[in-house]
């Protein structure tokens, strides 16, 4: 059920009305039922996968948590009976058991993700290798279903498991409450990847109907629909045309395609997250923000702190830090410092950890070399940026532009250009073609390509481009206003007729200028596929 389908809107309406009609203590069980119905409608077979992850993670975490609590209680009472070394051994023994359970649960669930998502990718690579060695008879591909949102709910569940294992919080006692945390339908298909301690604050609470909360939620949903239908799905036509015909659309067109895609992806993904957060908000549930105006970032590092925040922090907290702090890295750090000197040697473990994080980030986005190279591209850019720090410092000591509007603008534009270039890996069929098209921007761009007819030939009319342009202006304006606080709060403070004009205008703009219905292919949210 696409967020932009009539079915979803009808489903949402029914859930919303019933949510506030039923007794409050039934609200969270009702949401669980609704979430499972939502998932069942997508494909009944998906339920098996999400149920397995839910049950194994719940019991795995519960056993770990119970053992921790029991041991801590016992240890508190009896620690005086043991010597220091004995206490250490007892702790290590206890920890070892927990670790085994933790690793079994973690590997089992990541295994499901790996098998469903990456089996055919692995087979394709093995076949390529075999072909390189002259073996034409490759392994046959397997027909596997990839459950909707598996990357998101697996990461969310594993985040919970790791937090319980690390003693960050105790495990949830109620299997059904945990099941709701894993399957909460608004965020099931494209995130955000919520943390248990954040989402559980409001997910299980009893919520009374509050007009302001509900209207804020509806406003957020409407804003999401505007971004998705008016901007993303309209410019999508041109993006697809550019990608499909690389013989025609190279050079400047490839650049235009990269910029269009940057806009499409932003409007699509943030629009989807707006709908997710808005839906949850109408029911009084607070879902973590996933974006903070990422295209205003001044460098790539900052960009990744503002784009898909929940994914970035997940990788940082659950992959980067554990790897950086692992015994292997400690040893590597020692060795590299000894051999390469303190300055260079200390970077080796950091860079290796970053490399692993970005490789994983890439492959998490999709089972293809495009995504892996895209992830590693980010790694390279961040590393270069860090290595150039001394140069920047020298430059700013000589040229006093830091802090000026022009310099900030340059930084923002530079970040957008770099990120858009990297995003080209999302678009083209394979890595060599992506490099070729990127190269064509410099080798094949010409002034003759700057003609309106060519852009009309991409399937959009002049009016379509005008709608996208105005939509983009609205996006930028809202983002600028957002810097000084919540836009909805600001609008809430305006006179009622002005509020009405703003929200009704946005509604009518979406209704009329949205690219939906017959004549437009129902476009999935891009991040649904991850």
């Amino acid at each position, binding site marked *: 059920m696409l967020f932009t389908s*009539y079915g979803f809107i009808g489903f949402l309406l029914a859930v919303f009305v019933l949510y506030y009609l039923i007794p409050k203590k039934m609200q969270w069980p009702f949401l669980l039922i609704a979430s499972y119905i939502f998932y069942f409608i997508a494909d009944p077979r998906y339920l098996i996968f999400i149920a397995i992850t839910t049950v194994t993670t719940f019991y795995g975490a519960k056993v770990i948590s119970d053992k921790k609590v029991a041991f801590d209680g016992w240890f508190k009472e009896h620690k005086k009976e043991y010597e220091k070394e004995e206490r250490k051994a007892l702790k290590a023994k206890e920890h070892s058991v927990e670790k085994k359970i933790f690793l079994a649960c973690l590997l089992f669930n990541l295994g499901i993700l790996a098998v469903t998502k990456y089996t055919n990718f692995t087979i394709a690579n093995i076949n390529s290798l075999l072909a390189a060695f002259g073996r034409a008879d490759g392994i046959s591909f397997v027909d596997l279903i990839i459950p909707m949102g598996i990357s998101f709910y697996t990461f969310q569940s594993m985040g919970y498991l790791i937090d319980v294992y690390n003693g960050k919080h105790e495990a949830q006692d109620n299997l059904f409450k945990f099941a709701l945390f894993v399957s909460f339908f608004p965020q099931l298909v494209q995130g955000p990847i919520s943390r248990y301690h954040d989402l559980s604050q409001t997910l299980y609470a009893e919520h009374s109907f509050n007009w302001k909360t509900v209207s804020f939620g509806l406003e957020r949903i409407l804003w999401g629909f505007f971004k998705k239908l008016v901007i993303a799905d309209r410019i999508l036509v041109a993006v697809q045309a550019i990608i499909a015909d690389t013989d025609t659309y190279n050079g400047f067109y490839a650049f235009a395609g990269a910029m269009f895609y940057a806009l499409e992806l932003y409007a699509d993904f943030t629009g989807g997250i707006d709908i997710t957060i808005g839906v949850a908000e109408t029911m009084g549930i607070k879902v973590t923000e996933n974006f903070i105006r990422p295209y205003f970032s001044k460098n790539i590092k900052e960009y990744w702190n503002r784009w898909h925040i929940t994914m970035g922090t997940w990788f940082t907290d659950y992959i980067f830090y554990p790897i950086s702090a692992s015994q292997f890295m400690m040893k590597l750090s020692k060795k590299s410092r000894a051999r390469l000197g303190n300055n260079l040697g200390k970077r080796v473990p950091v860079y290796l950890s970053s490399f692993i994080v970005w490789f994983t980030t890439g492959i998490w986005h999709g089972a293809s070399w495009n995504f892996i190279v895209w992830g590693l591209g980010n790694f390279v850019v961040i590393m270069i940026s860090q290595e150039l720090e001394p140069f920047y410092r020298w430059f700013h000591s000589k040229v006093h532009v830091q802090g000026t509007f022009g310099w900030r603008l340059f930084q923002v534009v530079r970040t957008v250009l770099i990120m858009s270039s990297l995003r080209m890996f999302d678009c083209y069929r394979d890595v060599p073609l992506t490099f070729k098209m990127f190269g064509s921007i410099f080798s094949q761009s010409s002034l003759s390509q700057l003609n309106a007819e060519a852009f009309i030939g991409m399937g959009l009319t002049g009016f379509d481009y005008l709608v996208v342009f105005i939509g983009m202006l609205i996006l930028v304006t809202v983002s600028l206003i957002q810097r000084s606080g919540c836009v909805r709060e600001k609008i809430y403070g305006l006179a009622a007729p002005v509020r009405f004009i703003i929200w*009704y205008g946005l509604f009518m703009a979406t209704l*009329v200028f949205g690219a939906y*219905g*017959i004549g437009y292919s129902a476009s999935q949210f891009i991040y649904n596929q991850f």
Partner: protein
Amino acid sequence: MKKFIAIILSLVIALTGIFLASKLLEPKYMSGILEGAMIQEYYDDPTDHNVVFIGDCELYENISPVYLWENYGINSYIRGSAQQLIWQSYYLAEETVKMEHPDVIVFNVLSMKYNEPQNEAYNRMTLDGMKWSSSKVNSINASMTDEENFIEYVFPILRYHSRWSDLSADDFKYMFHRDKVSFNGYYMRVDVKAAEDVPEGRPLADYQFGDNSYYYLDKLTKLCKDNDVKLVLVKAPTLYPYWYDEWDQQIKDYASANGLDYINFLELQDELGLDWSQDTYDGGLHLNLAGAEKLSDYVGNMLTTEYGIPDRRDESALNEYWDKVIERYNAEIDRQTTNLKLYGTVHGPEEQ
């Protein structure tokens, strides 16, 4: 209280805005493709019809109710639309017998060849013009292709919103009213394009009409029997789309088994006096005015003599109604004839 009034006022403004936008954006069919405006014209005719023709272009382009009135005094209407599918014809018939009691319903059988929903644009031209009723709801449900949604029929703005970039002066002019485009359902063309080299039908893998088609033909037959309306099956005399002998035999068998009359006008071309070099405007697909009046003459005679349809030219109310239709009819003949002389086409410069 003040808040309550504000909410009501906001709702009224919001709904009015959506209504106006919807009215502006829905297609008007006032030039170019006129067929989309024909179904709803039926509701403006206040008279009770003795004969109602229901079917596709093989009826609404080939029979002239004006001719039937002028020459036989038959009060008739064509509830026709482009590529009207048999379930759409059935639900139009169902709606018709709820609204009036015709003596005869004439149904053109070409649509038996379609067993499944076909085309959203044609669906719209039939269904949008119908008034809301259970017949319309059922017709929509029976007609929708996979890409369609019922809600888009309820709220046409969801379907037609993308027309914002195609709006013309007509869309503003005809927001709340439409001009008449047909003459009691007849779509007129006076020009001539001779039928030459009409292709033979290609052999088909299966000539059997589908179950769904038969299901609705059965329903139509039952509807007419239950309502004491004589159902007459016809196949128009036009040469293309090709009418296979195997199809013809199935209709003959069905008519015989159900006690219905079936007239295949393709077999009566000599009696009709059709001249394919003069009586068609598009090479044999449809008749022009001359051809339609020839067929209407035959049909009028048949309806009068074989079905006892009365001559009602003595009814003043009907005369008053038909005088206006005839006036428009003659004006349209003049307009198309003049355009033909001046521009070589029936369409004036404003329509091209």
